[in-house]
C-alpha cells in the first residue's frame, strides 16, 4: 500500500538544490531540478548512512557530502565508486504550492 504524503512547500527547496524530509523513521531527499521540476529519493547514501541533503546538486546529479559518491536523483542510478547501489526514487506531485511524495 502506498500513500501520498506532504513533504514540504514548493518554495522550501531552492532551484538546483535538495532538502531532507523525515517521515515515520525514514529519511527522504526532495530535489528541485534546474528546470524547476521536483524529485524524491531515499535520503541516505547507499555507501554509508549519510544524509544526502548536505550534498551538492549539479544538473541531474546529487553528490554525497561524505565521499562524493554520485547519483542521478531523477532515476536513482549510482554513478560509480564509491557508490554501487542505486537510490530508491519516489513519485512526486506538486499541488497547491506543496510537494507530495508517494511512499
Amino acid at each position, binding site marked *: 500500500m502506498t500513500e501520498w504524503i506532504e513533504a514540504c512547500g514548493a518554495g522550501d527547496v531552492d532551484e538546483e538544490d535538495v532538502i531532507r524530509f523525515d517521515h515515520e523513521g525514514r529519511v527522504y531527499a526532495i530535489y528541485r531540478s534546474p528546470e524547476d521540476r521536483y524529485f524524491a529519493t531515499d535520503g541516505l547514501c547507499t555507501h554509508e548512512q549519510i544524509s544526502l541533503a548536505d*550534498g*551538492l546538486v549539479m544538473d541531474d546529479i546529487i553528490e554525497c*557530502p561524505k*565521499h562524493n559518491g554520485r547519483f542521478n536523483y531523477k532515476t536513482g542510478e549510482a554513478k560509480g565508486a564509491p557508490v554501487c547501489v542505486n537510490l530508491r526514487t519516489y513519485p512526486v506531485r506538486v499541488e497547491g504550492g506543496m510537494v507530495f511524495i508517494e511512499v
Partner: protein
Amino acid sequence: MSQHYVIVGAGEAGARAAVALREQGFAGDVTLVGGETHLPYERPPLSKEGMLAELFAAKTIATAERLAEAGIAFRGGFAVTRIDRESKRLEGVDGRAIGYDKLLLATGAAPRRLPGVEGARVVYLRTIEDALLLREALVTGRHLAVIGGGFIGLELAASARLRGADVTLIEALPRLLSRGVPEAMARQIEARHVAGGVTLVFGDGIAAIASGPDSAVVTLASGRRIEADLVLVGIGAVPNVALAEAAGLAVENGIAVDRHLATGDADIFAAGDCCSFPLQIYGGRRVRLESWRNAQDQGNLAALNMLGAGEAVSSVPWFWSDQYELTLQIAGLSDEGIRTVRRDLGDGASILFHLANDGRLVAASGLGVGNAVARDIRLAEMLIGKSARPDVAALGDAGVKLKELLAAA
C-alpha cells in the same frame, strides 16, 4: 594473443583500476595481485567507524562475486618480490611468477617506523590486522599512548576515547597537524581533543620506548615517563617503492610518474599513495598524496592510460578526516596560498579559503560538525580546478552562494 594487464597492490587504487579497465571495455586478461590475503578493502574506516562499531566488519571495495563477474583474477597473498622488465615477468616467493604486457604499480604506503623501537606493545595502523589488535586493547580503563599528532593518531585518539580508553598523545612540534592544516583549525581540533579527555603533550621528543609483553613505557626527551598498555606510532607513511627501485625505475618521494601516471618504462604505470606526480593546477609541482580519493581517481586514470587514452591528471587534491562529531575537509594544497579569507557557516563551522598572491583560489579548508562544510568545500574544489580568482569579499560572506561564484568563474 590476448593482452594481460597486471596490477600489483589490491588497495583502493589497484582495485579501482582493475574495475575501470573492464568499465572501459578492455577485453584482455586482468590480474589483481594483492600482498594481503583480504579482498580489497577500505582503510579510512580502520581508524573511525571500524574502531567504534559493535562488531568489526571490513568494508570491501569489490566483493569476490563482483571481481569474478568482471573477469578480474584476484591473487591474494601474493607479495611480488621482483619485476623483470626484460622478460616482463613478476616474481613472488616460492618461484611463483606472472607475465604481463602492461603493469600498474599500486603498492601504497606503509607506516613510517620509529627507528630502534620494537616490541609487542608498539603498534602501527594500516591494515585490518592492525585495527583488530588496537580494537581489542581500546577499552575502558586501558591506557593508549599515541605518538604523533597527525591524522591517524588523532582519529585513533578520538575513537579510543569514545571506547572509554585513556589517551596520552605526544607531538614533537608545538601544534597538531602541522602538515597541511591551517593553525586555527588545528587549534579547534586540539580543543576538541582536550574536551574529549585526551592528555596532549607538545614539544617533547621520544627518548626511548620499552615494550614488555603486556605494557610499555615511553620515556620522553624531557625525562617524563608515560606508562601505557599500548603505544600507537602515527608519524606518517612512506611509499612502497622497493619493487620499482630495484627494477631501475625512477623514485622521487614515491615512484616518479609523469602527468599520465606513466613511469620511464612505457609499459609500467603507478597510481595512489606509492607515486609522486606533477600537479597541473600548481604549475607541475611534484607531489605525492596520501588520500583515498586520489587513490580512486588515479586508479581510474591509470586504467584509461594503460588503454592508451593519454589523459593527464587534472583532479584537485581532496582529503577528509573524522574526529568525534567533527569533520575536516580540505581541497587543494593550502601551502600554495599566501593569505586566507574566512567564511563563517554558523554552529562553529567555518571555511578558510587560501589564495595565491595573484588572487587565485588554491585551497580551501573546512571544519564543522557532520557534513556542514561539505558542499562549500566541493564548490571550492571546482573553483580551484578552474584557477578562479573569486572576489575576496564574496568568499568571506556566507550569504553569497559559492555556486554563483562558480557560475561566474
